[in-house]
């Protein structure tokens, strides 16, 4: 059927265009920032030709890991958001719906509260707040353990209630509120240095990325994305409703549970290592559906690419908006995301999950 084939071809073209956009934004991202590095210098550095050593170090140890962190986080959070919106059949869902990011923030705050001063006392402080590598690592570990505990807890509850979408969403809301209260309690008793460290941590920031921290993120995002992509037809089936999906052979409970497991793991690892980068997991899937339609064969890969481009662009923007300062990207995502989202919703598009 020619019309259908043309329709599919149009979507493939849009997807390919988005894929081509990524290296362009990546290249621009490497040239942008307080240190003045020109395009030709970036090319020379990337190709291994001799260039000023300090500029090479900035590219390889600051800008490139930061850009890759933005790509991985953007892709991971967006694709997880699209999948969770599909299996929980709710357009308001995001990877944070299950309360995992709250748990990570709580784990970080708890580590700061109990270990913050003692660790920073023995380590060489790097910044004004006494933030240093050992401290960073232990906070990340605390955030990760806490979010994994929350993941296990909420998924166990989900299994118990046969992963009914409404119940799982409400449990996530309850868990989020609980962790919010725990963080407030810690903040109430914390001293000024601890309070500053807790608040600093809660900013989602790609500048924390190092090559060694990127490896586990990359592996997890890759494995999860492969799973999400393999489930495209099941997500399409679920859009027709629980029973219609089951009747075309979708194991609905298993798909829902595995999707939630991968989405939670992505959230746990990304939030623990980069902080809370909000909004992207909610807004990008909607943007993707608006542009490419509701077929999950395209929504999933397109969310992945658009998420990567979006966060990379926001990250680059965060380095150039205030001359001489590097702003945490999470501030930019919400500032950019909210108006885009509102425009989308009031505009022509229907972007139901």
């Amino acid at each position: 059927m020619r019309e259908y084939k043309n329709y599919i071809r149009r979507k493939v073209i849009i997807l390919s265009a988005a894929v081509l956009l990524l290296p362009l934004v990546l290249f621009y991202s490497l040239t942008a920032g307080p240190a003045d590095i020109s395009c030709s210098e970036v090319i020379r550095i990337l190709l291994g030709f001799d260039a000023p050593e300090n500029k090479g170090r900035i590219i390889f140890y600051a800008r490139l890991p930061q850009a890759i962190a933005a790509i991985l986080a953007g892709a991971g959070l967006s694709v997880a958001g699209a999948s969770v919106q599909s299996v929980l059949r709710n357009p308001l869902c995001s990877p944070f719906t299950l309360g995992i990011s709250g748990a990570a923030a709580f784990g970080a705050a708890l580590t700061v509260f109990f270990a913050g001063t003692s660790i920073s006392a023995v380590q060489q402080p790097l910044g004004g707040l006494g933030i240093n590598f050992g401290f960073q690592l232990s906070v990340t570990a605390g955030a990760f353990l806490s979010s994994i505990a929350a993941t296990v807890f909420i998924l166990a509850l989900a299994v118990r209630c046969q992963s009914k979408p409404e119940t799982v969403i409400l449990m996530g809301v309850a868990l989020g509120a609980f962790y919010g209260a725990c963080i407030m309690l810690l903040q109430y008793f914390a001293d000024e240095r601890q309070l500053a460290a807790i608040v600093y941590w809660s900013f989602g920031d790609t500048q924390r990325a190092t090559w060694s921290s990127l490896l586990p993120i990359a592996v997890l995002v890759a494995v999860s994305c492969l799973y999400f992509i393999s489930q495209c037809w099941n997500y399409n089936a679920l859009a027709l409703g629980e029973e219609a999906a089951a009747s075309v052979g979708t194991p609905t409970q298993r798909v829902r549970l595995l999707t939630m497991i991968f989405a939670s793991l992505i959230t746990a690892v990304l939030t623990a290592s980069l902080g809370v980068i909000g909004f992207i997991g909610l807004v990008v899937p909607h943007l993707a559906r608006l542009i490419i339609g509701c077929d999950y064969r395209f929504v999933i890969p397109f969310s992945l690419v658009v998420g990567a481009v979006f966060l990379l662009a926001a990250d680059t923007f965060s380095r150039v908006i205030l001359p001489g300062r590097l702003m945490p990207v999470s501030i930019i995502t919400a500032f950019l995301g909210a108006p885009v989202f509102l425009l989308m919703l009031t505009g022509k598009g229907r972007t139901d999950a």
Partner: protein
Amino acid sequence: MLEVENLSFQFGKEPVFSDISFEIPAGTIAAVLGPNGAGKTTLLRCINSILKPKSGKVRLNGASTVHLSPAETARRISYMPQRCGMTGMTVFDSVLLGRKPYFTAIVSAEDLRIVEEMLDQLSLRDKALRRLDCLSGGELQKVSLARILVQSSQLLLLDEPASSLDLKNKLEIFSLLKDFVHQRQLSVLMSIHDLNDALRFCDRLLFLKNKKLAANKTPETLTADVVETVYGIPVELHNTEKYRFIVPM
């Protein structure tokens, strides 16, 4: 041929129906009838293994359907729920989902051809690229029917398949279904409220009442007192040359 033997189901401790047994030979359309809440939909879901029956057996062409994987079940049994999700998916993709039990990721040219033919047969071709959420209730029912027909299964379970169709579409759809059933020797079980539709289009009438199978009749053997017992109102049965019909008094 579908054989249901002593099938029982309960929600928690509340039994919905118990000890239901019947057969639907190949090439037969059976209607399951009864007052609201009699368990018609639940019966269909149990046969399709969406709900797990408390006890009893379901056999299709002599083989039990209990231990089949979801995809294997979908190749043998297709189920059309009462409501279909309103999404932005296109009609074509939605019907293509009926072929999902036969492919893993890549859709074959054969699958596309089957979908295309079905859209032609149900006069849906000009709506192939429309979004589901832009269709009327009747069109949506036709799309759902198209989806379960491309599933090429031996048993069709339909939950109120014609409730949103106008008179013309209902006649078209039911005659098309009849042709399909006779050509491919399928068994069909559909829940239906309109007794006159059941009398006209179905070969067998199963009445559920008080958690039991109250009667198993053909349109020819149905009597007014069976209907009166099941629904609790007086009715009259009339015969024309071709059809029988019921008038509530």
